[in-house]
């Protein structure tokens, strides 16, 4: 199983019936494929959809219907369309049960840095700040380390922040980690990994409640 599939499958399990959620571009969107077909969930897209379905296939694309990343989605029964101001009223007004975003760095107090690497990567802000700051629950889906193998979970972020103290949970290919007042807490370990590996690849203290009874995924 690829690391993407591993993360997407585990991310899908965070989504429950009746929720209103936003899945960020990239890794978070992949989780959609692993949601049960009949799951009654309303997926929000920043460009003005509540009730987004799976990606279109086989020529069913509609030129007037895209998601926030430019892909062509289906819509579910009960879907609605609206303008960009109302779309962000859903976000800032606290109507999102959860948002799922990728990241560059997360700190042990839940700070998120995922929008700019000064001098190298500055494509803009998009909806990320509002999602990070206002979703009732923020779940980060990311590889545990960078391509160079450096930890993304840190004591403090080194990059400019997207939002302060906003992250609730982090799902990687190695572990599920919660952000608590005490710092990072290990909740689950991937079958392919070990507590030792997760501790070694996390750039901040990791609280391991009971090493022998950590669930696997």
């Amino acid at each position, binding site marked *: 199983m690829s690391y993407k599939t591993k993360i997407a499958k585990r991310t899908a399990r965070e989504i429950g019936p009746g929720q209103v959620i936003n899945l960020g571009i990239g890794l978070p969107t992949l989780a959609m494929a692993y949601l049960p077909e009949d799951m009654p969930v309303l997926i929000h897209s920043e460009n003005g959809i509540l009730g987004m379905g799976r990606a279109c296939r086989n020529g069913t694309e509609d*030129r*007037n*219907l895209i998601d926030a990343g430019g892909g*062509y989605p289906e819509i579910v029964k009960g879907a609605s369309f609206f*303008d960009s101001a109302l779309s962000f009223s859903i976000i800032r007004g606290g109507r999102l049960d959860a948002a799922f975003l990728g990241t560059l760095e997360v700190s042990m107090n839940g700070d998120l840095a995922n929008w700019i690497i000064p001098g190298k990567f500055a*494509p803009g802000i*998009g*909806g990320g700040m*509002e999602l990070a700051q206002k979703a009732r629950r923020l779940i980060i889906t990311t590889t545990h380390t960078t391509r160079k193998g450096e930890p993304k979970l840190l004591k403090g972020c080194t990059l400019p922040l997207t939002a302060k103290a906003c992250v609730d949970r982090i799902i990687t290919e190695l572990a599920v980690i919660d952000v608590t007042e005490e710092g990072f807490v290990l909740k689950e370990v991937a079958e392919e990994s070990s507590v030792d590996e997760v501790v070694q690849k996390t750039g901040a203290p990791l609280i391991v409640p009971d090493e022998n009874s950590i669930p696997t995924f």
Partner: protein
Amino acid sequence: MSMIDKNTTRKEAAALVRDGASVMVGGFGVPGTPFILIDALLEQKPSNLTLIKNEANEDGMGISKIIEAGMCRKLITSHLGLNSTVIGMMNEKKIEVEFHPQGILAEKIRAGGAGLAGILTDIGIDTIISEGKTKVEVNGETVMVEESLNADVALIHAAKADRMGNMVYEKTARNFNPLMASAASTVIVETEEIVETGTLSPDEIHTPAAFVDHIVVIDNLTEEYGVLQSHVIQD
């Protein structure tokens, strides 16, 4: 009662955009982007424009063509992730770019259209985007003043309009269009279909005619309006 008819040609419409004008352009990706009006601007060649749009379309499409032609001095936007050409021009300082969180950009425009001086928000309060912005205390919380945005001209795409200017948008082509249609001194609409005034149901109208000055009817949807094959999942 004689009926008002705001129908005009694309050439006459483009001539309303002067050198140095600020121009709001509807659209989020392809849906809602007024490609025909953008092409009319490319022929008219106004210079030194300030463009306001959610993103800069993708390389070689829509407002990217205006920027690539050197007609745009400044871009007020949210995200350029799908346009490496404009990111390159920004990095080479060939164009000034001002970024806002997407919903704050929408709300600044909405406020401009609503006759408000600005909005108060905590979005980005703990980040570098708060630097230099006026802060005030409201109910014990620190919030930022985000000034409203207006423009000289708005270029809007509608699925359907009547001759008086009542508009209907389709699916995700709505996005910034109704907001921008309220926030500019001169509002130019391109529409895929024009109908006689009185045939649209008053309940289905997304933007009322009061906001619309000129209507250009699209006679032929160019390739740019179609499905972008680069975003289609191939089985």
